[in-house]
């Protein structure tokens, strides 16, 4: 009798738990990229989305900051084994590891930001960085007095070339005579985390006449924007809104709404309508944009704003097509 009662209670409890799990209980997890959660840029954007989700739902989110690329696979597998679901992998460098782990755990939902993994249980979110970069390129060309504009990328990969290429098209759109001087910080993932070198690259560009620099380099960007402030030049931030870093010398930031990507993915999972497949977020979808707030409003004249807004409308309507470097690995269509 006693045993029967015990197992009945256990059964009911299990059934109750299972039904709850099917509807609302999600155990979300996020694995950041090697730049670290507080890079003031890409990862911090994701973190903002995660924090918003935690605040609104009071659901705890497991987080992991890998110190190097070899930990991606391990971390993904650990989270999957603990049946964390969904799991967000931040950054293109996790794609290979995710491809492997997602096959091992077909019932767990994964989301990758910034890369495409073509599996039924993976949601891939990529951005049209070229469109956002085009807009900040227009601003840079209008703000530059010397007609020379700098770009400092992180690791030399097609994704970063896409930023560069969109930026260049924006510059040429606003001022066909303007010149772009580009540098890449390095060829290894360490290039995302080398502010000293970033500062040195930026100073090299300033010495060559550059007066606006666009930093698309993760944590390295902190050094680039600092160098711009030290020399009284203008800096353009990336991913998160970085205008607050140096009010007065930050022209704008190219916003990549990774926070929305992370937040939406968790919300969809919670509501039970999470879907696999690829989402491409551009200007039209609100996935990329440029930042205007109290920290840079003095630098953006009404005329500049009008020009950028016109370009934005044209891109959204399809009148301007911004070429994507990654479509043919070249900046020429």
């Amino acid at each position, binding site marked *: 009798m006693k045993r029967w009662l015990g197992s009945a209670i256990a059964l009911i409890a299990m059934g109750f738990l299972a039904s709850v799990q099917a509807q609302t209980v999600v155990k979300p997890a996020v694995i950041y990229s090697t730049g*670290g959660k507080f890079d003031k840029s890409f990862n911090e954007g994701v973190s903002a989305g995660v924090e918003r989700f935690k605040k609104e739902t009071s659901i705890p989110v497991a987080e992991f900051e890998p110190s190097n690329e070899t930990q991606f696979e391990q971390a993904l597998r650990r989270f999957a084994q603990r049946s964390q679901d969904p799991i967000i992998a931040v950054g293109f460098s996790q794609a290979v590891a995710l491809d492997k782990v997602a096959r091992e755990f077909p019932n767990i939902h994964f989301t990758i930001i910034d890369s495409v993994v073509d599996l039924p249980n993976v949601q891939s979110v990529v951005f049209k960085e070229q469109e956002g970069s085009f807009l900040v390129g227009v601003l840079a060309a209008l703000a530059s007095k010397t007609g020379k504009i700098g770009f400092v990328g992180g690791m030399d990969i097609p994704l970063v070339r896409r930023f560069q290429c969109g930026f260049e098209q924006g510059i040429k759109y606003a001022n066909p005579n303007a010149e772009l001087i580009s540098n890449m910080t390095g060829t290894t993932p360490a290039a995302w985390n080398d502010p000293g070198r970033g500062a040195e690259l930026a100073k090299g560009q300033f010495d060559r006449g550059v007066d606006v620099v666009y930093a698309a380099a993760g944590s390295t960007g902190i050094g680039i924007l600092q160098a711009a402030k030290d020399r009284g030049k203008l800096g353009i931030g990336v991913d998160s809104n970085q205008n607050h870093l140096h009010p007065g010398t930050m022209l704008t930031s190219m916003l990549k709404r990774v926070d929305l990507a992370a937040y939406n993915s968790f919300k969809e999972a919670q509501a039970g309508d999470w879907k696999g497949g690829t989402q491409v977020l551009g200007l039209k979808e609100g996935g990329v944009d440029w930042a205007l707030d109290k920290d840079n409003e003095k630098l953006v004249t009404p005329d500049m704003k009008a020009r950028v807004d016109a370009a934005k409308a044209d891109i959204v309507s399809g009148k301007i097509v911004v070429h994507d470097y990654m479509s043919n690995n070249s900046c020429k269509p």
Partner: protein
Amino acid sequence: MDEALTYVLLMLASTLRVATPLVLCAMGGLFAEKGGIVDIGLEGKMLMAAFFAAATAAVTGSAWVGVAVAILAAVALAVLHGFACITYRGNQVVSGVAINILAAGLTVVLGTAWFARGGQTPPLTGSERLPPLFLPNAGDNVLVYAALLSVPITWWIIGRTRFGLRLRAVGEVPIAVDAAGISVAWLRYRAMLLCGLFTGLAGAYLSIGQNAGFSRDMTAGQGFIALAAIIFGKWRPLPAFGACLIFGLLDATAIRLQGVKVPGLGEVPVQLIQAMPYLLAVFLLAGFIGRAVAPKASGVPYVKEH
């Protein structure tokens, strides 16, 4: 003509900025190496110093206090290294590696615990950084001049003082020094203290001179480059200084050569330019430097005979 001159000056400024931590670190390493202690922990000491410089400057608001604490931190690690391999005669390479790993981990852990910014310190502004002294655009803060001064000082101490003579002897034939009634251990400890002093300055330069704050692994292998410079310079201060400048110059060139179209070659790939310092290192070491002979007692713990 004017343009060419400006270009040369800009390159020179950039070279000095990049070479400063290398020079300071190499001079520190020279004292240890001359005294017969292999110090591959230069990187770790520099990293730890960089962290404490930035952390202290952020909390106290004074760059100078930051420099002082950076030196203390590096000296502490240097003494730890000495404790392991002078007093306890441990393997010097192992102890050096341990210091590098300790510094890489501890800086991030402490940084996360104190500032909650994923291992970074808050960005530094105004008096929390070392200002440029004469040329606002060249970034010539006091530590750049300290690096330039450290070379003749090192040369003088090692080559012209009684302490230097004994230090060199201790690196070659410690038993002779011991026989003369001079403490081998104390000499080597003093070498480590000097090593800590210079690597401390190098670290402080990185986080509060060149940059405005500490970030994870910001030394990025420069301690090892400094070690290579010591070997390049055959364990002598002036040639080691030259080697540091060559590394600095190559780096500065690499930065300015990126994306520039070279006549006849077109645009040089980034990868090739960034491999240049290392290619040159191999080339020089194989063909031009000749045999680099380390101090004889290098890496050998001294066991006092009774």
